């Protein structure tokens, strides 16, 4: 009875430990998103150098992930490799520092694009202002052109009206045609 209980407890403990290790290993991929902030802003700049840097970062991250996955695989196969995993994690905590430094560099690099963007904004503002001015001038020109055109047409109509009036006045003389016969 005692032997059965001891073996039962040992089997239970081994199962618990195995489950713990498996559970611990299954949480490893959750650290991957910490790399994403490094990739995203670099690619967003649209600069060739930045794109290269981002590729490099992605490659580094891929390498780290693959190393980590290898380690995890190792971990899975060998639950006793916990210390090695901790070393890897320590190494990984060094990488974010490097990444932070890299981010600083990128921030420094993005200083120029920011200035460029500001210039572009200024240019856009100037272009918009110029377009608005042209729009206003076009509207005013349109108003003047229409008013002057109407006035000129009015003068021409008046000329025709005068001609017709004179013709009608002259027709009074036509009423006298043959009056002396």
């Amino acid at each position, binding site marked *: 009875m005692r032997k059965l209980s001891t073996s039962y407890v040992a089997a239970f403990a081994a199962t618990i430990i195995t489950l713990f290790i498996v559970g611990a290993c299954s949480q490893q991929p959750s650290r991957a998103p910490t790399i994403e902030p490094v990739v995203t802003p670099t690619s967003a700049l649209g600069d060739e150098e930045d794109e290269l840097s981002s590729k490099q970062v992605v490659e580094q991250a891929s390498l780290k992930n693959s190393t980590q996955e290898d380690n995890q695989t190792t971990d899975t196969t060998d639950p006793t490799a916990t210390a090695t995993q901790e070393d890897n994690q320590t190494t990984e905590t060094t990488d974010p520092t490097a990444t932070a430094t890299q981010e600083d560099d990128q921030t420094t690099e993005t200083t120029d694009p920011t200035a460029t963007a500001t210039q572009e904004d200024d240019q856009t503002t100037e272009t918009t202002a110029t377009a*608005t*001015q042209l*729009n*206003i*001038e076009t*509207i*005013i*020109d*349109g*108003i*003047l*052109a*229409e*008013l*002057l*055109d*109407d*006035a*000129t047409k*009015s*003068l021409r*109509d*008046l000329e025709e*009206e*005068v001609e*017709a*009036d*004179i013709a*009608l*006045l*002259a*027709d*009074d*003389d*036509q*009423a*006298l045609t043959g*009056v*002396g*016969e």
Partner: protein
Amino acid sequence: MTSLNREVIRLSVTFVAVSFLVWFTVATTGLLRAETPEPKGICAKLSSMTSNTELSMQNRLNKIEGKRTELDKKRMDRQASKMIERAEKKLVGEAKLAAKAEALYAVAATDVQTAAVATFVTQVEAAVDARVTAVNTAIALWHNEGDRVRNERIALSDSLIATQTSAVWSAHAESEVSCKEGIVSKIVGPVHKSAIAASKDQLNADLAALPPMDVLMAPYRVNLKAATDDAHKNFTDALQTATDTLAIALGVEASDAASMATATDS
């Protein structure tokens, strides 16, 4: 001599006497008639000619008056139609200005600019009103001068026609006197005909000598053009002033209304 014979002789003498008396009466009447012959030619027709002339003259005046009334109505209708047409064009112009003003209000960014647009619209409307008023005044003056010249022409024409009518009546009267004086129609007729022809020729010559209406109206046409040109220039100047003010307020380059007006004229 027997009594029978005496009776026959007495009846014969009586018959001869009566016959002689009858012959004498008839012969006397015939002689009298031969001394006052029936009028022939114009002297015989003068009475009917007078009544016909009177009727003809009245018909002529009625015909002339009818044509004048018809032409006057046509002229008045045309003038009224043109006045309505101008008023309608003014309304259309105001509507178009209002529509374009909306576009200006839309681009006005500040209250100051909005106020400047409102001022511009007011100034433009005032300029349009001033131009229309000046043009209408000039046209009214032109119409008045046209009426006056026309009435003068009608009065002069009527005077010439009346002169010719008097000449015709004089010819009739002179012919009547001549006929009464016993002058034969062969003499009276040609004189009368010549007098009538002379009166017609004189009337036609007088009418032909009247200056053409376009010549009579020429000075007023010049005045009308000067007035409308002034109105047009004042209108252009007012538009330029309004545009300059608006351009400053909106910070844009002002249009050159004068050069635009020149381009439009050409």
